[in-house]
């Protein structure tokens, strides 16, 4: 104590407090205030409250009693949960693979010199920008019944019409196709920007060393876009797991719950079965699954 008083330096807390009041700190704090307030109301408060709800048995009409881990045990032992977890995983994996291949392929094409390139770039973004409802209406028409486009093509080649929306496997396939269609433009656009930022001299050096086009793609392009690719896959994972619109609007998670992912399951528990506790527990498990995936992908990125 006496030592501290003897020295000329102010105690650490006072220095900190002074820093807090300095204009370099106060001005950004004021500028951030509205956003932080919004985040507190819409994210932080519901998060804490939802965590509490996941341990109760309330409904949308009245609050419930604390039931401990009952919701979680019920959820983790229900086949519906494991089914939707599996579907979420397949959905995300197919979406990432499909979007990456399609996005990278089209980005490479768009990089080439051709008349009308700018127009093509804009037109390829349309599936991403139209409202989810509109894209589902347009796709549903194409797979609706035996007279719809897909079946007309199939019968043209002599096949039998397929009832896409009443067959589980086909419904899963269609939901995945629609999701890829809706989200590849973002991948394409981001990869295009990454490709354009690669230093041209790297390709010249590769050409001097006698690399073929394929070799310079494999040894120059891919390593250069590796980091942004991992970030993009991270975003795609998050967006696919959290997607409600595509499975719900196509067939309300059907047929026979085939396209029910974790979010649709949580929605059903809460708003169809009026079980707030189970809905909140499902949402939290979804968050944990996501956090585990994100953690894994970030480790992967750091290692590279």
């Amino acid at each position, binding site marked *: 104590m006496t030592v501290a008083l003897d020295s000329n330096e102010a105690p650490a807390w006072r220095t900190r407090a002074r820093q807090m009041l300095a204009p370099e700190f106060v*001005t*950004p*704090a004021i*500028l*951030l*205030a*509205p*956003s932080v307030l*919004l*985040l507190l*109301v*819409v*994210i932080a408060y*519901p*998060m804490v409250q*939802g965590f509490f709800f996941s341990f109760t048995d309330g409904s*949308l009409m009245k609050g419930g009693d604390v039931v401990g881990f009952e919701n979680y045990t019920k959820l983790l032992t229900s086949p519906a949960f494991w089914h939707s977890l599996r579907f979420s995983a397949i959905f995300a994996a197919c979406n990432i693979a499909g979007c990456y291949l399609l996005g990278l392929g089209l980005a490479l*094409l768009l990089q080439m*010199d*051709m008349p009308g390139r700018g127009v*093509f770039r*804009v*037109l*390829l973004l*349309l*599936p991403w*920008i*139209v*409202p989810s*409802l*509109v*894209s589902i*209406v*347009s796709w549903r*028409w194409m797979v609706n019944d035996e007279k719809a*486009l897909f079946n007309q093509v199939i019968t043209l080649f002599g096949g039998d019409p397929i009832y896409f929306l009443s067959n589980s496997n086909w419904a899963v396939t269609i939901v995945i196709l629609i999701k890829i*269609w809706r989200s590849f433009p973002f991948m394409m*656009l*981001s990869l295009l*920007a*990454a490709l354009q930022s690669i230093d041209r001299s790297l390709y010249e050096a590769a050409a001097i060393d006698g690399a073929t086009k394929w070799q310079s793609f494999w040894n120059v392009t891919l390593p250069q876009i590796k980091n*942004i690719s991992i*970030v*993009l896959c991270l975003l795609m994972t*998050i967006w696919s797991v*959290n997607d*409600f619109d595509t499975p719900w*609007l196509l067939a309300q998670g059907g047929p026979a719950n085939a396209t029910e992912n974790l*979010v649709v399951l*949580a*929605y059903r528990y*809460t*708003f169809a079965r009026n079980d707030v506790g189970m*809905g*909140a527990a499902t*949402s*939290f498990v*979804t*968050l944990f699954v996501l956090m585990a995936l*994100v953690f894994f992908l970030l480790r992967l990125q750091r290692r590279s």
Partner: protein
Amino acid sequence: MTNDTLLKRWGLTGAMTVIVLLVNLPIILLMLNSLQTTEQILASRSIIPASFTLANYEGLTNTPFFTYLRNSLIVSLGATAFSVTAAVLAGYALSRFRNGLLDAYSTALFAVQMFPIILALIPLFLLFRPLGFINSPVSVIIVYAVVNLPFVTWMARSYFDTIPRELEEAALIDGCGHIEAFIRIVLPLSGPGLAAVSIFAFLFSYNEFFVANVFLRTTEAMTLPVGIQMFMQQFSTDWGSLMAAATLTMMPTLILFLFVQKFITHGAIAGGVKG
């Protein structure tokens, strides 16, 4: 230029045209079908319709379509005002200052991107109900403002990064405060950037379905995506009006998008990568 490369370039254009048409086929079919009656759509065997009619569009006047449209506009404009105000202030702070608070806020924004919104909806539903916000634009406006926040803030920030600091420094020397300098010097220069950011926030909110589906449950309150989904269930056989409604819903999106498409790369990349 040799004939060979010329041929190759135009060959690529041809191939791209086919790809673009294939990719956009669902949207093209939707628009073509909206110009046919349901009977014609169901009987049709070719992609190009034999005759066109506006009957479906006229029929929409007998449906709540225009109520939905009005609600959509109220909700989207409200959410845009909210989120752009918050995001522009925060984007300016992120662009000009650097400290622990801002780093924490950046991380929070990234977390919002990955946050499963369903998690917030249940508690918010219970919070909003006694306040009378369910079936009112207020509830969705508040939630959209936050859903928009990361992207819109990153866009605003990358725009402010392009405005030279020297302009404010001069004002600071003349005795202006930071916030005053921002309002009097930087904001008036940010017109085009703010327009792009606003259109983005508007598009997000106008297209959104999930949140609106939870909070807006009466015909009087529904926005277009939710309302049309009801169409889909009620008139499941009436493809003509469904497609006309979907086409009309999509139009403002397409038109606004053309104005801002060149800003997309900026916001998307800056946001996704800077985190």
